[in-house]
């Protein structure tokens, strides 16, 4: 029985691979701060050397101070909360509708054929251009932001889910068929877990688009959210504060993206992508 090796014999290569993966994963933790520091140094040098006006480009130190001040301001946190809410609520709607519609479309051929032209059409329309319309329909409050976030996040989730359900291996379907599985069992035990890596990729794109949607929605209407705050700072020529809001937004975006990566590790530990991504 040449292939009947005990599990212990199989362990060393796996351990070696794990070791290399950890080393690869550690590298960005060193390079990222270095590159970042370099960029800040160039920025500082440029502003000082060419005497750039603080209105155009403030010094990094001034931006840092503005951001620290922002962290201590309850009003700034209120705005942050509004943006987080709009992003998450919009994303949640997009996830629920996108996944269920994606599953249905992938399974029912005539529905896919019927919907496909519209899906493509809505994909190519610059959806951001529709934001004023949403403001008109849903008002200047939080609802219009949620809707914009949802609309932007919806399509990548839909298309990735449909792709995932269609990419299920025929052999796996044969197994369920030979086991006389019910439709629900096929969905729950085969289609859903099999499509999950695709769905999470859709989520990864979707969450980034949701935060873009929320912020663009805030640019154009209402008096809350980080997008509104940024425009307010711009209009007041408080450039350092504007940069602080930008940093705040970027960190938020990172955190959202990061949490999908964590979700990947929790939900699909068996999948190769869970080992390579953050």
């Amino acid at each position: 029985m040449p292939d009947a090796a005990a599990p212990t014999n199989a362990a060393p290569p796996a351990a070696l691979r794990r070791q290399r993966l950890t080393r690869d994963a550690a590298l960005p933790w060193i390079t990222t701060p270095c590159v970042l520091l370099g960029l800040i140094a160039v920025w500082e040098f440029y502003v000082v050397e060419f005497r750039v006006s603080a209105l155009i480009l403030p010094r990094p130190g001034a931006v840092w101070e503005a951001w620290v001040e922002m962290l201590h301001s309850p009003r700034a946190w209120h705005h942050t909360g509004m943006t987080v809410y709009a992003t998450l609520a919009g994303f949640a709607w997009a996830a629920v509708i996108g996944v269920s519609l994606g599953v249905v479309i992938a399974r029912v051929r005539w529905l896919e054929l019927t919907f496909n032209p519209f899906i493509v059409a809505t994909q190519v329309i610059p959806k951001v251009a529709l934001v004023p319309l949403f403001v008109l329909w849903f008002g200047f409050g939080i609802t219009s932001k949620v809707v914009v976030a949802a609309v932007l996040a919806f399509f990548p989730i839909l298309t990735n889910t449909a792709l995932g359900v269609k990419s299920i291996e025929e052999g796996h379907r044969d197994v369920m068929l030979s086991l006389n599985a019910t439709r629900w069992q096929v969905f729950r035990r085969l289609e859903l877990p099999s499509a999950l890596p695709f769905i999470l990729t859709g989520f990864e794109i979707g969450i980034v688009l949701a935060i873009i949607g929320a912020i663009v929605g805030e640019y154009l209407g209402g008096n809350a959210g980080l997008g509104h705050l940024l425009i307010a700072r711009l209009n007041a020529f408080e450039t350092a504060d504007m940069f602080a809001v930008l940093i705040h937004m970027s960190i938020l975006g990172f955190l959202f993206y990061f949490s999908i990566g964590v979700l990947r590790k929790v939900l699909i530990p068996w999948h190769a992508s869970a080992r390579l991504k953050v």
Partner: protein
Amino acid sequence: MADPARPAIALRAIEKWYGTRDAPVHALAATDLEVPEGEFLVLLGPSGCGKTTLLRMIGGLIPPTAGELLVEGRRLWRAGQRQGEALADLGMVFQDANLFPWLTIEDNIALPLELKGWPRERRLQRAHALMRLTGIAGFERRWPRELSGGMRQRAAIARALSYDPRILLMDEPFGALDAMTREAMNLELQRIWMQTGKTVVLVTHSIAEAVFLADRVVLLSPRPGRVDMIIPVPFARPRAPDLQSTPEFQDIVRRLRRRLSEIS
């Protein structure tokens, strides 16, 4: 409870056509075949002879165009619909192990029992017993990708046996394995078959594998697929690898090879 006179599988004028009305393909001409209880039957033939089609019809994966198919005395197909009770007597093993990558080995093996609603503890107990039978104990919590091809195929056999079907249907189960692993798996399969007393129908295109494993070899010829001849293989069990170098074994292999080159 099994009636000794009743075959495990009975095919009565089973026929299969593929394709449209304009360009139909005759995959399998009307075929009669009986597999007695406990027999190891091997379907052998060149590609396009309909051996996989035949096995997939017996396994309930594709409906026959005409004819009657009895599994343990019960009709498998009724008006194009599969009958659940007959399916419960069939376990399938494919060329690819087709384990679900998101389930550990033990959960993969227990999957059929999960679908039948067994409680987790009971079905894992059953899975562990089958892992001992198929020689993969110790890999319970591993992912399928961590196992070699031969190991994965053992797990697939364990999964097919999990709900204790009377019949095991195997579609070139070792076709994707290297020659050495393949020989080891043939011995393992013989041992599992003798230990469990199942009826086995195995599809292969390897003549030596067919003769080594089979009680009877059914040779199929192509265009349309049909039974060309049936050769009984009388060697005693358990058969050892050395059997393959005996003149008697070589004789049967030669007969089959000659006929194969005539028909393909």
